[in-house]
Structure formats: C-alpha cells, structure tokens
C-alpha cells in the first residue's frame, strides 16, 4: 500500500497513517478504518442534489457551485467578481465578452434552481456579486410520470 500512494517505506506510510488517526481524520476500528464526516473537509450534498446537478448542469457550473459553497461556509458577506470565478475556471475575461456572459448565466441558473442566491451591484469598475445564500437542496418540483 505504501507503494500505491507513493511512499517509499512502510515505516513512513505507518507514521502518516498514525498521524491521521491521532488527529481524528481516520479511526482504527478492528478490521476496518472509519472515515468520520468531519465538517471542515466536506460539503455534504444529498444524493438527490448530486443527481440533479449531474443531470442538468454543465461541469463548469458545478465547479462554480462548489467554489461558492466553500466560501459561503467559511466567509461572511462574501463578495466576488466575475474575474475571480473566471480565474477559478481557468478562463480569461479580458477581451472575451462571451466569457463574462457565460459566468453571469452560470450564476443565474444556479439561482433559478434555488442552489444559491445573490445580489449584484456595480462598484464603478466591474460587476460584483454578494452571495446571500448557498443551499445543498435545489427547488423541488413534482416528478412527472
């Protein structure tokens, strides 16, 4: 197993594992390890939400959703710009007006399905967004059929 994760010696592997156990990220329980759901690592999403976003939303929009989720969890009154989102997606805004539109559309669709809410304002230079809420549950509608 040490080789599998790129650790050269079994001793090093053991010490790395023991460290995770000491810190409570892994629990040694007889013939199994338990990985406790530690809130500061995970964003917990219900299966229905995962299925919903996987079925309906493009990967880049999902990235924006998760990015905003991490920030909503740890930052108060989080304000972000299109540049910041573009950077996260590996895109360049300058000289690419279509990119601006795509980011705005991504935020719009996330708001429309109830996963985020935001207000936008203009600071004189560029549009800014204040994240008002982030939800792990989308707006549900009655299933058809």
């Amino acid at each position, binding site marked *: 197993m040490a080789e599998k994760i*790129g*650790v050269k010696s079994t001793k090093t592997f053991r010490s790395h594992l023991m460290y995770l156990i000491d810190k409570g990220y892994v629990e040694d329980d007889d013939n199994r390890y338990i*990985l406790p759901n530690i809130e500061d690592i995970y964003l917990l999403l219900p299966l229905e939400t995962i299925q919903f976003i996987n079925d309906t939303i493009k990967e880049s929009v999902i990235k924006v959703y998760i990015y905003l989720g991490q920030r909503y969890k740890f930052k108060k009154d989080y304000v972000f710009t299109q540049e910041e989102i573009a950077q996260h997606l590996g895109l360049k805004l300058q000289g690419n007006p279509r990119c601006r539109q795509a980011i705005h559309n991504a935020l719009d669709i996330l708001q429309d399905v109830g996963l985020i809410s935001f207000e936008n304002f203009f600071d004189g230079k560029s549009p800014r967004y204040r994240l008002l809420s982030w939800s792990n549950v989308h707006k549900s509608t009655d299933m058809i059929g």
Partner: protein
Amino acid sequence: MVQKRFPADTDLTKEITFLKDKNIDAELYSYLQSMSFPVDGVTIVEKSRLPS
C-alpha cells in the same frame, strides 16, 4: 510525493484545520476515501481491501 491536493486557497486554509496541517498526507487520505463506502451512515474502509 504530493502532500496536499485540496483547494489551494490561502484564505480558506486559515480557517480549515485539515488544510492548515502540513503534516497530513492528503494523498493517503484521498486514497482511503477512494476505497471507502458507506455502511449505515458510516464511511468505512475494509482493511482486507487494502493492498498489503
């Protein structure tokens, strides 16, 4: 060996202990996660499934 694979956001790392702790072997943790499955709401890794 990669020690950290989680978000490289320095602002967030101030508030997330897992990200702050440079002694954590995130590659090992990720590997354990990839081998894990839920049983009665608990995420477990069977030792017998891990390579020796």
